Each structure stands twice: as structure tokens, then as C-alpha cells.
């Protein structure tokens, strides 16, 4: 079986800055990968390239059989809505849309909206009584759960989370971890950038970056 994600000799430059170079690894479908490393080591850059938000400078990135570096802007947009579920450190909800509408927005960009399904997704993350709230009326943890519901709504191949608990307290972090755990058990493929050893230890494997290079791939200590 071919891996879901293949990264080969990936390089990304921002002018003089080499954010990534010589990075290669593979991810099997259903795996939970933690991407770790010090600040500035290229974790966000890697996630952005995998999510089709940025172009690699060179190297090959294949996700679900599609070579990302060769997609046009329009195809990348399609790719993001079809294959990827994003969760960001700053939650990134649309401030003037309700929780429900934020989830439906992803449906709208993907295909057609289904209010029942969106409400059900919010129920699964424990927000069934927050449907009509605006992001500003929700706690950080609740906003992040809306973002997770939104990331899942179109059944993506790949869930990409960039420090999803970075702005949360321990209690909320635990809730999010539990959700990620459930997603993993349900068979989702998850790549999560984290500084937290706790999350790193929950993952199947840890991809560690240093100065834009792949330092090592380790197995969690349990």
C-alpha cells in the first residue's frame, strides 16, 4: 500500500532563508504524527506546504496520489477544500459568523451546505448548545472545538493542526487532546505540530525538525 503522504527531499526557501531542506518522510493513512522542534525550525512551513497553502521550492510532496508542487492555484484551492482539514493555533474562525455558520462555510466552499450535519459535527465536539454563538462569545477552548468541527466536516484525508493547544490552558488542552485521540481511533490521519511532550507521546511517531532539517523520527515513550 502506498503511503498517504510522501515527502521527498523537500526544500523551501524564503529569499535567503532556508526554512526547509532535505526533508523526507512518509505517513501512512490512519497515522498520528507529531511534528516537533524548536521555534523557527520549519514546522509551520512544512504544514503549510502539506496543506497546499504554500509552494515547495524543490522536492516532491505527494498527498493521496497528488503531487502538490504541480497543482495550479485553482487546483490547490480544490485540494484544500477536498483533502485537508486545518486547525490553527489562533483558531481562525470568521468573527462575524456563528459557530454553526463557521462550520457550514467549509461545507459551502466544498460543495453544498447541510445545516443538520454541521450541527451534528458541533454536537460531537460538545458544543450543541453553542450553535448560534459568535466566536467572540466563546472561550478559546470552545473556539478551537468549533475549528475542529469545521476541519472534519468535509471528511478530509488529512488533518493538519499547527499547535492547536498553544493558546489554551491545561483543561482545554486535555479536551482537545481527547478529541484528537478520538479522531485517531476513528481512523483519521493527523499531523499535529506541537511543543508539548504530552501530545508528542500520544502520537504514533514524532518527526523532529532542527534548522529546517529532519533531525530524527522517534517513537513515543509510553
Amino acid at each position: 500500500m502506498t503511503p498517504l503522504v510522501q515527502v521527498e527531499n523537500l526544500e523551501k526557501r524564503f529569499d535567503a532563508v532556508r526554512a526547509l531542506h532535505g526533508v523526507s518522510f512518509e505517513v501512512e493513512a490512519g497515522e498520528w504524527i507529531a511534528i516537533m522542534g524548536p521555534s523557527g525550525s520549519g514546522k509551520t512551513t512544512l504544514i503549510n506546504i502539506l496543506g497546499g497553502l504554500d509552494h515547495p521550492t524543490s522536492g516532491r510532496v505527494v498527498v493521496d496520489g497528488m503531487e502538490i508542487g504541480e497543482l495550479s492555484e485553482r487546483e490547490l484551492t480544490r485540494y484544500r477544500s477536498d483533502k485537508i482539514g486545518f486547525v490553527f493555533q489562533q483558531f481562525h474562525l470568521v468573527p462575524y459568523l456563528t459557530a454553526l455558520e463557521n462550520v457550514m462555510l467549509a461545507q459551502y466552499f466544498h460543495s453544498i451546505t447541510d445545516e443538520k450535519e454541521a450541527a451534528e459535527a458541533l454536537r460531537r465536539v460538545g458544543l450543541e448548545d453553542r450553535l448560534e454563538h459568535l466566536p467572540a462569545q466563546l472561550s478559546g477552548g470552545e473556539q478551537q472545538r468549533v475549528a475542529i468541527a469545521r476541519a472534519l466536516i468535509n471528511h478530509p484525508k488529512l488533518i493538519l493542526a499547527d499547535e492547536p493547544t498553544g493558546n489554551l490552558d491545561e483543561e482545554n488542552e486535555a479536551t482537545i487532546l481527547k478529541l484528537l485521540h478520538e479522531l485517531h481511533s476513528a481512523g483519521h490521519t493527523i499531523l499535529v505540530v506541537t511543543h508539548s511532550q504530552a501530545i508528542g507521546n500520544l502520537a504514533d511517531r514524532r518527526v523532529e525538525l532542527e534548522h529546517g532539517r529532519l533531525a530524527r523520527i522517534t517513537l513515543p515513550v509510553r
Partner: protein
Amino acid sequence: MFWRIFRQLLRASRGRLTVALIALSSGSAISSALLNINLDAEQKLRHEFRTLGANVVVAPPSAGSDAALADASIMDRIGIGSPQMIAAAPYLYVAANAGAQPVILAGTWFDQVAKMNSWWKVDGAWVTSRDDSSHCLVGQAAAHQFGLAPGSHIELRAGERKVSLTASGIITAGSDEDTQIFTSLEVAQNLAGLPGRVSLVQLSVSGTPSEIDAFTSRLAGALPGLDVRPVRKLAAAEGSILGRIRGLIFWTITLILILTTLGVLASMAALAMERSRDVGLMKALGGSVQRIMRLFLAEAAALGVLGGTIGFAIGVVLARWIGGRVFGVAISPRLAVFPATIILAVGVALLGALPLRLLGRVRPAEILRGE
């Protein structure tokens, strides 16, 4: 979902959108007022112009000869009673001398001349009584030539006959009349030795061009053997003045629409700054540029329709006010102005929404990275 997002978008940005709406409404108000004036005032001004000077002349058939053929009783036959007739003045032109120099004397009815030519600039005073035989009006060129001022005396001679008159006013008409001296009809007839005679009759008739044509041919039928013709020179002048007003209105509207666009641009630029993060996010979520732009274009179009409608309503009031103030005519609202205003307002709004359209180029990775 489109309309759901659309509604929330409008609600979230109502502050900035209100500013843009105010700019659009005021721009549309002035534009639609001017358009309305252009459409409606034109016709009313044509009528107004009729009251400025003669537009029909009744003369003996051998035009050009100064034979004073028409009888004074012609004034009865013209029928001053017609509601279309604003004024009618008989004229007898006499070649006279003031001192050694020749001058054209125009004997006429002072009251009708004043009515017909109320726009003449008069230094001194009009002669108000039709048959005043001791005063005259002097064209400004003639006054200059003979050194006359209001109150000056002048002696006029024709052959052996002479008459002494006091200049009541110096008139400026901007035409041949400026070289003439106006006396009562009787004074001119006596001086020329042609009692009961006139050279021609000038009429001021109101109505549209076709109404005036109809009047002219009716009159020609009633006056066999006489030449009844419209005065083309004045009609042409009217056309050129209306053309200039139209040009003025066109350029004013253009200028105002440019200013309105700038106003809309300013608030849309601020809005674009506020929205760049959301657009980056929408693109990251797989929203295509067309889908996102469709929202903003719909927003701008809605703004245009609303601004145009408000502007039209205000414009009707404004047109009435300007019409009364400037042109002295009541402007009635023209429905054709409504779609025109809407089209202009929507066009301006779409143009002003340019900063929002530029948001399509936002790169989500950069937007989402920044705090």
C-alpha cells in the same frame, strides 16, 4: 448559504458600509437632481426663452424694403387675445439724424417692448407708458456715439421734421438694438410723415417648437398678403445655450461621480484592510477567489442600488429646490432618471470596491502566519 454569509458580512461591516452609502447617496442625489433638471428644465426653459424677445415677425411680403406698408390696424387683426401670445410690438423704423450723424429710430409700443425684452439691461429707467412722446430709450452703442446718459436731451431730425426727446434709459440688448433709439410709435410716424404705418410687428409666442409653428401658420392664414415667419436667429441661440447647460450638467455629474468613487474607495480600502485576514482564512479553507469575490461584488451592487434609490429620492427634492431657486421653474420628477441613477450608483460602487477585489490576491499562508 451565500445570502447567509452576505447578511452577516453586511451586519459586521455596517459602520464602513454606512460611510460608503452616504457617499453614494449624496453623489447620486446630486447626479439625479442634475439629470432631472436636464430632462425637465430643458422644456421649461424653452418656454422661458420664448418670453425673452420676439420669436415671430409679421412683415410686408417684400422683406428688406423699408416700405411702411402694414396698416396700424394690423395690431387688431393679429389678435392679442391668444393665450400663447406673450407680447406684440409694432415697429416703424425711420432713418433719422442726430446732429450730423445718421441713426435708426425705432418707433414702437414701450410697454410691449419692456414685456418682450425684460432681460435687457437698462441704465436709467424703462419708459412705461405706451404713448409717451417726450421720452426715448437709447441703445448703448448709440448712447456712446452721441454722448448720452439717462436724463440727456437729444434732437432728432428727418428731413424738415424734428423732435426733441429726453433719454429715459440706456439699454443693452447685445444685438442690433444697441445702435437704435426707441421712441413711441406716434413720434416715429410723425417724424417720418407716415401716420398709421408700421414696418413690421414682433411677436413673442410661447410653446414648443411645433406649437409655435402651428401658431405661425394659423396667423399666416389670418393675415393674407403678409409675411409671418419665425425668427431663426433666436431659436439657434437658445439651442446653443441649452447645449451649454447640458454640457455643464454632464461635466458636473462626471466630476461628482469621480468624487463619489473616491469616497467609496476610501471606505472600501479601510474595509479591505479589515477583511484581509478573513479572506486569507476563506482561501485556506478552500474558498475559491470567485466565490469570495461574488460576495463582495454583491455587497457593492446592493450598496449601489440602495444608494441610488436614496439618492434619487433626495434628488427629486433637490431638483425642485434648484429649479425654483436658479431657473425659476418647478421641476417635476422624471422616472427615466431613476434607472439612470441606479446604473450610475452601481457602477460607482463597483468601481469603488476595487480594494476589495484586490483582496483576491491575498496569500493565505502569509495572512494566517501573521498575528
